[in-house]
């Protein structure tokens, strides 16, 4: 009897699934809520082409991706984009760029990795296309500095869509209640954290993306940059991990640990968001593209309570604990699709209408679009962008960061002493430089 029942149940499930398949318009809505309809008038290719787009999902990148996919899929061109997280994008980028052919025809790239891929010759230089299509897509309105951020040795390897800078998000209600001001230095950051901790409601007031396998590398670099130095002395090509600044960076990062969840070295940006959504933390420093999620009341009951400021400086008088990352579109050298066509697709997605529509989720690369009226964190972002550390467009930067991140995590959590960590990082750094040749 039992068997009979389960057979029927299974049959029922099958019917339900097939009904769902046919009835509910599966895959019909291409994230329409963030796609803008823009003109995408490429020269129609003679044969049908499928263009695979690799771009991680976040509120700031989605508008550009979705606009491109929705507006440019017509005639003989079909764009495909599968949702993927940031770690997935990093891994797939490495995979698709190795070898003679790859799966993806358009990839999302950012200033951090451009020098490496540019120097390895894996991305197509875009200058001739910018020349050819500049007028048609109004590319001269794109901020020159951002264009430079996606260039290496004078060639442009990525068409900028937006800038992302580290921004401090904090709970205004908590700050007001305790009479606190957003911190401008790490010393103040410790003070306000202590005050919030002492108030007793929130045990770990600060949340930072310090994932040991990646994000903490960016954090360490930001702490170095705040003191005006980088991984490597650009003149002597000597790694600077044993320098006084490196020591300060590590010590200062370590000093924040008592105010953060003990498992902070497993936090990527989405987990920091979770901490803020859940009210477990009252402050977080993340890239600006993650900020708009905090203001949506579908995500959190605290949506109305967040305010934004430029991140603090590590030491008083220094630059911010900041980072500017420019996101853009790149074309892999090994794609089989016509590169002129691909360029038209990416150019259309960063056009004025699309860029305007991406606000407030993004800080688009076009001049003067973000104002206090249209973006809740505009002031913080504009201020942050003025005062970020110098860009460091060197091909070793990404490898330095990924090579040393685990050591930084071990130092910060106290697993190994600072000197020992510095020594290990120096060793890794010298090896990376030796491979540069």
């Amino acid at each position, binding site marked *: 009897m039992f068997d009979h029942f389960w057979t029927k149940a299974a049959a029922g499930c099958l019917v339900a699934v097939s009904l769902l398949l046919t009835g509910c318009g599966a895959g*019909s*809505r291409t*994230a329409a809520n963030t796609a803008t309809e823009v003109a995408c008038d490429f020269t129609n290719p003679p044969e049908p082409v499928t263009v695979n787009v690799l771009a991680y999902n976040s509120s700031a990148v989605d508008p550009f991706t979705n606009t491109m996919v929705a507006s440019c899929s017509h005639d003989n061109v079909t764009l495909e984009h599968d949702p993927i*997280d940031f770690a997935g994008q990093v891994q797939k980028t490495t995979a*698709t760029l190795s070898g003679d052919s790859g*799966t993806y025809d358009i990839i999302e790239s950012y200033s951090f990795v451009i020098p490496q891929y540019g120097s390895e010759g894996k991305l197509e230089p875009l200058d001739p296309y910018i020349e050819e299509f500049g007028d048609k897509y109004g590319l001269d309105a794109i901020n020159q500095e951002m264009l430079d951020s996606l260039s290496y040795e004078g060639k442009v390897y990525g068409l900028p869509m937006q800038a992302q800078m580290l921004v401090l998000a904090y709970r205004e209600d908590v700050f007001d209640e305790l009479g606190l001001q957003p911190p401008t230095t790490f010393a103040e950051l410790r003070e306000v954290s202590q005050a919030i901790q002492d108030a007793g409601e929130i045990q770990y007031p600060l949340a930072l993306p310090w994932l040991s396998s990646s994000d903490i590398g960016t954090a360490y670099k930001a702490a170095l940059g705040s003191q005006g130095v980088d991984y490597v002395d650009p003149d002597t090509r000597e790694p600077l991990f044993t320098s006084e600044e490196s020591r300060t960076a590590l010590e200062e990062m370590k000093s924040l640990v008592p105010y953060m969840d003990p498992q902070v070295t497993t936090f990527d940006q989405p987990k920091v968001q*979770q901490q803020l959504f859940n009210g477990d933390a009252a402050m977080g420093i993340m890239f600006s593209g993650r900020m708009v*999620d905090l203001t949506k009341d*579908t995500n959190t009951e605290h949506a109305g309570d967040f305010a934004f400021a430029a991140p603090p400086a590590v030491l008083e008088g220094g630059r911010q604990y900041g980072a500017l990352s420019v996101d853009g579109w790149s074309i892999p050298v090994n794609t089989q699709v016509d590169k002129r066509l691909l360029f038209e697709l990416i150019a259309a997605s960063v056009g004025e209408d699309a860029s305007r529509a991406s606000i407030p989720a993004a800080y688009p690369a076009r001049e003067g679009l973000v104002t206090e009226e249209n973006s809740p964190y505009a002031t913080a972002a504009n201020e942050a962008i003025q005062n970020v550390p110098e860009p460091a467009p060197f091909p070793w930067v990404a490898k330095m960061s990924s090579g040393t991140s685990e050591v930084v995590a071990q130092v910060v959590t106290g697993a190994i002493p600072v000197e020992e960590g510095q020594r290990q990082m120096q060793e890794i750094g010298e090896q990376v430089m030796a491979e540069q040749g």
Partner: protein
Amino acid sequence: MSTLTTADSGTARPLDAAAEVVARRLPRGRRRTTAAVLGGLFLAATCVIMFAPFLWTIMASTKTTREAFANPPVFLYEPTATAFVDLWQTTDFYLYLINTLVVAVITTVVALLVGLPCAYALSRFPGYVSAGLLILALVFRALPRFAVVLPMYDISRALGVYDTTYALAAALIAINQPFTIWLLRNFFAEIPRELDEAAMVDGCTRLQMLRKVMIPLMGPGILTAGIFTFLFGFQEYLTAAILTDTTSKTVPVFIATQLGQTLPMLQQAAAATVLLTIPVIGIAFVAQKYLVAGLNSGAVKG
């Protein structure tokens, strides 16, 4: 038959010794009842613990986005299907689901077609050649997956079959072939050889005999092997993650790339987990009898 039922079977003893038995047994019977209750409680607790992770995922997928991953956790809520609807409409989830099914079905059918004759031959042709093949199968079964999958990645890219369902299915057929023939061989070993001979005397060729006599007898064995192979194909993550990319991506791979997403999409990952798992749980409920019977009649004698 076991601790729990023997307490009952004690009451069915012959009547002539009943009085004596009752007098002697009562305290012991009570002890057994306590054991039965404890056993039942333990089993119930095990069921709850084993089901808890999936239950929590079901709850996360049917809450509002705000409540889904709230801390402290929300236990009472009004269910909503938004996450499922969004998953269905904004992603190509149905394609991944179809890919997963296609891969699992191809794997099952081909693995059985290829494995049946081999398993039959192994069961009827004892000696060092068969033993050698079985040892090889055992070693293949135990190989670290990467030792074969990374070269497959390289080869499939060179041959231009990377990211296709059939390449993935081919890889899975090969990887699971050892288990398939091992399982089926033990089923064949249960069937007496005299049957083969009788059929051969009647003028059947080996293949005809295999098709007309053996396969019908092997019904439960084939079903068991089929279910296991299907589950292997349906669940496989590592091989699929390395051999597929966009067009033939399977659901486990899709879910694994959603772990670092932010809220609305993260909740959709929970919904995807539920949608992927419900059908196989259905299979588990329907197929359990065959799994136990199948394993009983041969598989575990190896």
